[in-house]
């Protein structure tokens, strides 16, 4: 059985074997769709984590909702200086992790990233493609910790900010 959520596996299948030109086009397309996953005005979340870390070029806000069935839905707001590849990965992750449980998000291995990005585009300064996944996992960890402390998912939804 795949270690990846089903939707992510589908996206990986899309990228597998793509010629370099088409891979770039696909990544550009995903990056241009990243704005679809920004939180809307007035939208509320179970958890908001907005910060600028030293190793990232701009502020990144991760917003998490978990429904009564325990399915997660992420929104991400990226500062204008965030690079195109990171925008693409954000779009891919928001789409592919929707409906996963916070526990399963935490278990997603990072080794799928090179399958999407490809050898040509992987380089030292593009390592922040891993960053958004790390932030999503971190949000899930905090959400679950709060859920455990408060005794259940429902009680953990306090519109909390990290």
């Amino acid at each position, binding site marked *: 059985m795949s270690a990846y959520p089903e939707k992510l596996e589908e996206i990986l299948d899309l990228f597998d074997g793509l010629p370099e030109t088409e891979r*770039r*086009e696909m*990544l*550009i397309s995903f*990056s*241009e769709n990243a704005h679809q996953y920004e939180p809307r005005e007035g939208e509320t979340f179970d958890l908001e984590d907005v910060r600028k870390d*030293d*190793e*990232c*070029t*701009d502020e990144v806000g991760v917003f998490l909702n978990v429904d009564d069935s325990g399915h997660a839905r992420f929104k991400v707001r990226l500062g204008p*200086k965030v*690079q*195109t*590849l990171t925008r*693409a990965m954000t779009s891919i992750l928001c789409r592919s992790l929707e409906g996963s449980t916070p526990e399963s998000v935490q278990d997603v291995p990072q080794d799928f990233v090179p399958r999407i990005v490809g050898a*040509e*585009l992987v*380089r*030292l*300064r*593009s*390592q*922040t493609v891993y960053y958004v996944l790390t932030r999503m996992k971190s949000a899930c960890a905090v959400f679950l910790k709060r859920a455990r402390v408060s005794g259940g998912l429902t009680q953990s939804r306090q519109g909390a900010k990290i």
Partner: protein
Amino acid sequence: MNEKFSDYAHPEVLVDHDWMKTHLDDPHVRIVESNEDILLYDTGHIPGAVHIDWRRDLQDQTVRDYIREEAFAELCRSHGITEDTTVVVYGDKSNWWACYAFWVFSLFGHKNLKVLDGGRDLWVARGEALTKEVPQFARSEYPTPPERRDAAIRAFFADTLKHAEAKLPLVDVRSPGEFSGEITHMPEYPQEGVLRGGHIPGASSCPWKTAANDDDTFKTRAELTEIYENGLGLKKDDDVVAYCRIGERSSHTWFVLTYLLGFENVRNYDGSWTEWGNMVGVPIEKSDSA
């Protein structure tokens, strides 16, 4: 000519938006975009611009070094660049990689080189034209350069060690935190594999950013003179070596010192801190940042 440019030592190496807009279709001009963000060109670029990637196109893929003479000639041929073509470079990050490309083209002696002042971000901020159309140019003739001019504008590790021991001017253009050793990564960037924090003994700290305005344009001649000559104490005939982490920010400073202020003997130590900071048996200094 742009009034600001006319004060520089070599005003011919800079172009502004007005110049660029009147040369978009000039067959004697080739516009080159060079970025850190490796997909940025694909999202849209100045009409007619070709993409030169600092790692894929300018660096050897198996040796930590630049391409050799024949590969450079082939790169130019593939973009329809001749010996006489005016190559105008621009890019993201305040033109770091544009200056890096300018420097590499200079290694091979290409004569007609210019930088778009303000780079990509100012072009975009002002709402100037962008396209996703990738131009196709007929292959050109470009003779293989007789040599790569390493000795003239490039410092290797051994050169830099000798330079430091002789207490000649060394300019560390990284951030104050990198210079002092407080941090081992560039602010806002991931760790790039440096084992030690600090600077080359005897180096002076003068971050590249001091030469740029907030809109990524270069500061005026008077401002640059104040920074580098009055502030840092450099003289035009000094033998100067500039370095950063991998040579891109120091390309920016190399360009400023050489072309905007007219220094005659500036070299870029492209091995920079990722080489020096990791080298076995080599001393470093730590200090309060200036």
